[in-house]
C-alpha cells in the first residue's frame, strides 16, 4: 500500500480520477458511450479524440525535456505540415485520389522531420540553449505556413482519405485515437525495451558525463528533436483533417504550452533526466478532462485561469522549497527554517569569517 502511495503516478492519476468524478457528478450521462452507425460516440470518446494531437506532441516533448531541452516550435511545425498538406490536396486536380493524399501526408511529414532536424542541429551542433534555438522556428515557422497558404484561410473540404487521419473512424474507433495510441505504444516499446530510454535519461542528467561514458549524446539529442518534429507534424495533419478550415495562424496555436503542461503534470521534471511516458499520457488526459469540466460546469471563458492555477499548483508541488515552506506553516512557522535560508547562511558564514580575519589583520598592521 505504501509502495503504491509513493509511486509517482499516483498524484496525476488521482487528479484525473477526481476530474472524471466531478464531470460525472455534473453530468450523469458523462460515461455513456453509444454506438451510432457502427461507430462509438460519447463524452469520453470526445475527450480521447481531442487529446490525441496533444498526446502526440507531448510524447515528443517528453523525450526532448528528458534530455534537458524544450521545443517551443511544435505548434509552428504543426501549422506548417497541416497547411502544406491542405494546400497540396486543394491544388491537386483530383482531391479524392488516395495517391494525392498519401503524397501530401508523406511530404508534410518530411517537412516536419526537416524542421525537427533543424532544431536538433541548432541545439546539439551549435550548442544554443533549447528555448532560444526553438524560438527561432516558433517565430519563423508560422511565417512559413503563411507563405505556403498565401496568407489565406483554406477551406479544404476534406476527402474521406484525408479526413480519416483526424476525424474518421476505423473499426468503430476514431482513427486519431488509434494512431496516437499506436505511436505511443511504439515509443514506449522503443524507450523501455531497448537502451534508448536510459541513454536519453543519461543525456538529460549530465550530457558531458554521458559523452565521456561513451553515449553519443549529440546523436541522441538530434534524434529526440527529430522525433518531436515528426510528432508535431502528425498532430498538424490531425488538426487540419478534422476541421473545415485551415488557418496557418491558428493551427496548433498554444499546443506547445499544453504539451509542456502535460509533461510537467505527468511528473517529468523540466530539469531533465527521468521521464514517464504514462505520466505524460495522464497529463494530457487531465488537461482535456479539465477543459471539458470547466466548459460545462463554469464557463468556457475561465478555462485559461483554471489552467494557470493548475500549472502554478503543480509547479509548487514539485518545488522542494515550496513544500518546506508549507511544512513550516503547518508546524507554526517557527520550528524549522526553510532549506534556502539554511543554504544562504552556510555560504555566508565563511565570507563573514574571512572578513573578520581581514579586519583583524588590518587592525594589526595599522597598529
Amino acid at each position, binding site marked *: 500500500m505504501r509502495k503504491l502511495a509513493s509511486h509517482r503516478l499516483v498524484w496525476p492519476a488521482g487528479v484525473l480520477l477526481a476530474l472524471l468524478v466531478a464531470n460525472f457528478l455534473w453530468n450523469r450521462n458523462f460515461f455513456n458511450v453509444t454506438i451510432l452507425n457502427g461507430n462509438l460516440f460519447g463524452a469520453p470518446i470526445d475527450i480521447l479524440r481531442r487529446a490525441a494531437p496533444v498526446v502526440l506532441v507531448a510524447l515528443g516533448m517528453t523525450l526532448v525535456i528528458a534530455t534537458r531541452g524544450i521545443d517551443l516550435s511544435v505548434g509552428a511545425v504543426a501549422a506548417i505540415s497541416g497547411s502544406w498538406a491542405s494546400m497540396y490536396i486543394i491544388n491537386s486536380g483530383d482531391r479524392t485520389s488516395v495517391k494525392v493524399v498519401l503524397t501530401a501526408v508523406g511530404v508534410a511529414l518530411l517537412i516536419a522531420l526537416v524542421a525537427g532536424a533543424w532544431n536538433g542541429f541548432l541545439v546539439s551542433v551549435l550548442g544554443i540553449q533549447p528555448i532560444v534555438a526553438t524560438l527561432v522556428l516558433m517565430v519563423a515557422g508560422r511565417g512559413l505556413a503563411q507563405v505556403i497558404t498565401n*496568407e489565406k484561410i483554406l477551406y479544404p473540404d476534406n476527402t474521406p482519405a484525408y479526413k480519416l487521419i483526424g476525424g474518421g473512424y476505423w473499426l468503430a474507433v476514431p482513427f486519431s485515437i488509434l494512431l496516437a495510441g499506436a505511436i505511443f505504444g511504439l515509443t514506449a516499446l522503443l524507450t523501455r525495451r531497448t537502451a534508448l530510454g536510459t541513454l536519453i535519461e543519461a543525456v538529460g542528467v549530465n550530457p558531458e558525463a554521458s559523452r565521456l561514458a561513451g553515449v553519443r549524446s549529440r546523436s541522441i539529442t538530434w534524434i529526440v528533436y527529430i522525433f518531436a518534429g515528426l510528432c508535431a507534424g502528425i498532430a498538424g495533419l490531425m488538426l487540419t483533417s478534422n476541421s473545415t478550415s485551415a488557418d496557418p495562424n491558428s493551427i496548433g496555436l498554444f499546443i506547445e504550452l499544453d504539451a509542456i503542461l502535460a509533461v510537467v503534470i505527468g511528473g517529468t521534471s523540466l530539469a531533465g533526466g527521468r521521464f514517464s511516458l504514462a505520466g505524460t499520457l495522464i497529463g494530457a488526459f487531465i488537461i482535456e478532462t479539465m477543459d471539458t469540466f470547466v466548459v460545462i460546469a463554469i464557463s468556457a471563458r475561465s478555462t485559461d485561469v483554471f489552467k494557470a*492555477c493548475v*500549472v502554478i499548483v503543480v509547479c509548487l508541488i514539485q518545488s522542494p522549497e515550496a513544500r518546506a515552506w508549507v511544512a513550516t506553516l503547518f508546524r507554526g512557522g517557527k520550528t524549522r527554517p526553510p532549506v534556502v535560508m539554511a543554504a544562504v547562511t552556510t555560504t555566508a558564514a565563511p565570507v563573514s569569517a574571512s572578513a573578520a580575519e581581514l579586519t583583524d589583520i588590518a587592525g594589526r598592521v595599522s597598529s
Partner: protein
Amino acid sequence: MTATLEVKPAAAAPKRRSLRRFERYSQIGATVVLLGILLGVGAKLYPNFLSGQAIMDLFSKNSFLIALAVGMTFVILSGGIDLSVGAVMALGSVVAATLLQQGWPAYLVIPVVLIVGMSMGLLVGLMIHRFNIQPFIASLAAMFLARGLCLVVTDRSIAIEDPFFKTMNLAHINLWESTTVNLRGKVRISQVYTTPAVLIALAVLVIAFIVLHYTRFGRTVYALGGGESSANLMGLAAGRTKVGVYVISGLCAGLAGLLFSFYTASADPVAGIGYELNAIAAVVIGGTLLVGGSGYVLGSLLGVLTLATIYAYKEFDGDLNTGWTRIMIGVLVLFFIVLQRVLVARRK
C-alpha cells in the same frame, strides 16, 4: 633577449584590449549596420520610406513594444525570461477599458493598471525566487493567468470613450515641417509629428538606462546575469533584485497596455498574442546576451526599430505576405544568436 620577451606582451596588450572593445561593441555595431541596410533597402524599394513622418511612425506605431522591450531587457540581463508580457499588456488595456467604462476617472485607472502589471510581475518573481521555479515555466503560468483574466473580464473588444485617453489617441506633437513629393510630382508640405505615447516610451527608456548604469540596483542586475552565486557571495541583494526585475517587467507591460489603449483607443482581450516573442526578439537583436549579464537597454530600442522597419515593409507593400516579415524576424534572431554564440565561445 629578455628585453624582447618583455616587450612582446606589452605590445600585445593594448591590441588585445582594443580587440575586446571591438567584441564588446561588435554586436551593437552589427545591429546598427543591419538597421541601416534595412532602411536603405526600403528607401530604394518604396518612395517616401525615409521621409520624416515614416521614420516617426516607426516610433509611434511601436511605442508599446519599446516599453515591453525595456522591461524584457531587465529580465534577460538578469539571466531570466518573461513570457507573460504580451498577456499582461492585454490585461492592462482590458482592465483600463473596463474601469473607464464603469465611470472611473483616468487618473485613478492609470495607477490601477500599473499596479495590476506590477503584481503579475511580483507573482512571477516570487515563484522564481522563493520557490525556485524556472523563469520560463513561472512566467508561462502568469501568461495563462493574465490571458485567462482578460477573457474573464471581457470576451469582446471594448472601445474607450474617456476624454483623456481620446486626447492621448489623437494628440499630435508637431516637430518640423517637411516637403514630400508624391508620384505625380506634386509637392506637399506637411507637419512631421509624434505622439505623447512615444515620448512616454522614450522617457521610460531613459529612466531604464539611468537605473541600469548608474544605480546599485542596475549593477546588481548585471551581476545576477553574470552568475547568481557569485552575486550572492559578493553580498549583493540578489534575491530582492531578482524579484525586482520581474516587477519592473510587469510594470513595463502594464504601461505598454496603457500605451496600446492610447494607440488603438480600445482594448481587446486577445491583443498582443506573441508580443512576448517580439520583445525577446528586439532585445536579442539589440545585442543583449540571452544568458544574461551583458547588453544595453539602448540596443533594445535599436532592436525595436529593426522590427518596426520590417513591419513597415509590409505597410508600404500591401502585396507582401505577412509570413515573410515573420520569417525575416526569425532569421534575424537566428543570426544574432549565432553571433552571440561565436562571441561567447571566443571569449572563453
